[in-house]
């Protein structure tokens, strides 16, 4: 989830406020597939990823492309508008009540000594690692991946060597959206979701990405772990209802002391 966001920002310096809401659409898509077609989300997540890839490219081509050179404020507002539309479309289509997918896998737990391991979460974790690795390989080992990184570092230079920057941006945005689509499908059996979940997911994504470092894949991954650990610790030591304070507190600290995040490069 955060990996997708960091990709979008790292490459295009566009802040995708609609990230969380895209994820919610991913979740709803998985939900529809599960209830109408009976496909388990652990299988359908690839499809959700693909669908969101298309959405991402569409958004990028249609909207973001026009303002790539515009000041940051405009980009933020644009994505905010997209977020509003996505969230409330979901509300109109699916209604406000929380939905959840019942997957056979989600009901299992393993006993490992004194611990109980939630199989669903374990699977999600493993898939997340696999996807992240796949993405890393893609970015560092394939032609397109290298082009994406090049455009991120130096758009003019990339153009000079003949890369079609617009297409690359579209690809990057699309991949970022695909990540989020997969994440949505994987998480859907664990997390009851409503259209309004989008907002908190966006905020969490941003938390993670800032803490881990914008534009750094490793950072996004580590950031994700950090934030969840921080929140759990907060729940244990403080009142659980205050656990979100921990991640926000961490966010503020990082913003002030090391805005590049733990693994990020200094923003241009």
């Amino acid at each position, binding site marked *: 989830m955060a990996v997708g966001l960091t990709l979008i920002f790292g490459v295009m310096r566009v802040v995708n406020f609609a990230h969380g809401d895209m994820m919610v659409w991913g979740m709803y898509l998985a939900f529809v597939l599960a209830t109408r077609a009976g496909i388990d989300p652990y299988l359908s997540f690839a499809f959700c990823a693909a669908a969101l890839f298309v959405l991402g490219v569409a958004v990028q081509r249609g909207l973001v492309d026009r303002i790539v050179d515009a000041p940051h404020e405009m980009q933020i507002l644009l994505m905010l508008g997209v977020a509003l539309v996505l969230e409330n479309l979901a509300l109109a289509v699916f*209604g*406000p*009540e*929380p*939905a*959840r997918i*019942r997957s056979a896998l*989600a*009901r299992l*737990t393993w006993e490992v000594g004194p611990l*109980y391991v*939630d199989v669903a979460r374990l699977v999600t974790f493993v898939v997340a690692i696999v996807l992240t690795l796949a993405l890393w390989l893609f970015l560092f080992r394939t032609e397109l991946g290298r082009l994406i990184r090049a455009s991120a570092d130096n758009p003019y230079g990339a153009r000079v060597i003949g890369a079609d920057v617009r297409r690359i941006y579209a690809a990057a945005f699309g991949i970022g959206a695909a990540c989020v689509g997969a994440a949505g499908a994987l998480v859907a059996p*664990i*997390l*009851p979701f*409503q259209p*309004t*979940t989008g907002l*908190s997911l966006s905020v*969490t994504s941003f938390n993670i990405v800032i803490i881990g470092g914008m534009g750094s894949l490793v950072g996004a991954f580590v950031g994700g772990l950090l934030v969840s650990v921080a929140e*759990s610790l907060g*729940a*244990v030591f403080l*009142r*659980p*209802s205050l*656990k*979100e304070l921990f991640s926000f507190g961490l966010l503020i600290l990082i913003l002030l002391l090391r805005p590049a995040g733990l693994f990020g490069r200094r923003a241009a």
Partner: protein
Amino acid sequence: MTTRLTRRRFLTTAAAGTAVAGFPLPLRAQPTRFKIGAVHPVTGPLAEPGQACRLGAQMAVDAVNAAGGIKSKGGLELELVLGDTQTKPENGRVEAERVVTQGAQMLLGSFDSGSTNAMVSVAQQRRVPFLIDIAAADPITANVAKSVREGQQKVQYVYRNFPTGSGFGRGAVRYFTEIFAQAKVTPKRVVVMYCNDLFGQNQSRGFMAAYKAARPAWQVLEDEIIAWPEPPTDLSTEVSRLKSLKPDVIAPITRPASAQLLLPEIRKQRVESLGIVGPGSPGLYEAGQIAALGDDLEYVLTSVPWANFKNPRTAAVAEEYRKRSNGKTFDTNSGYSYDAVLLIADTLERAARLDDPEAIVAALRATSYTGGLMQYGGPIVFNELGDNPNAIPTMIQILGQKPVAVWPKEAAVQKLVFPRPKGG
């Protein structure tokens, strides 16, 4: 200039809009029907209960009119002027003003306490009797009573036919005590858990206050009350904590979203207990929740305002509701709105005059009505705060994947199952 154009255009479009919405503009004050402003959150996050309320109220109006209207006033019929708050307090105010401007002589609403309190100011300002069908925050009526007592307001126009937060608490504590006595257990480790939002906090506070006042034999672990932010993304930490407390009884106050996380988590972490008994919250009995949670909800008890299914009329109304709502159950929300309209009809029968708000208020205060469809502890009356002390919850249990009333005995439709069967 531009601003003037916008204003004029707005006013005409608003008039057109209201006409389209289907309400005749009051050209002159010619009340051939008595208008009640029914304001509920029919869109927005509380749309489902809001729509249930609106339908319940509409059905009651249709029933009253079909039976001949307000007989003592020449068969005067009732009519609803509908409003939507979207759960935002400012809309509560706007809609209240709008329906009163369109001729409503009484107000009905509005489910969430923020919008309800905004409506209170309009009711008091414009002297419009306001019957709250659903809203639990105690201060809503208490504040008005106080301002009348202290002379800042002349008349209290706001009354409530619904259990208050403290009423919920007292009812729940009483049921806990009786159920445990019935099962011959005295749990010493009752763990209270709640969703940390407006509703959850209110309920938990009411419950704990009633518990401390009653000092029953069973005991809550007072220092180990677990709260979580609502809506939660993950409750594994909270449930681990629950498990480490070795609870006898788990008492959760949930919302639909958190219930969907909590119950499976309790099962996954294999937290054993005598049972899950909720002091009263949504999320543990609705059709949608049963569909989503299945077996995890079986045997769960919760104390909620419920319809009296032993009353023959209730079954007929529930059936009609099921038809008109495409399969939904007649429950707390639709039920209390339905009863509120019946109550208004009864009040209007007794009121000396209908064009004088104070006369209506006088009749309201003198109410002693037994024709309600919900489970009450006596006739509907109003106390000095404007609340109905006989509005009580009922303990329901999910048995056979259906919610049924199990306690108190007078209300029970099926036998209570507690402690929860092992392996269940």
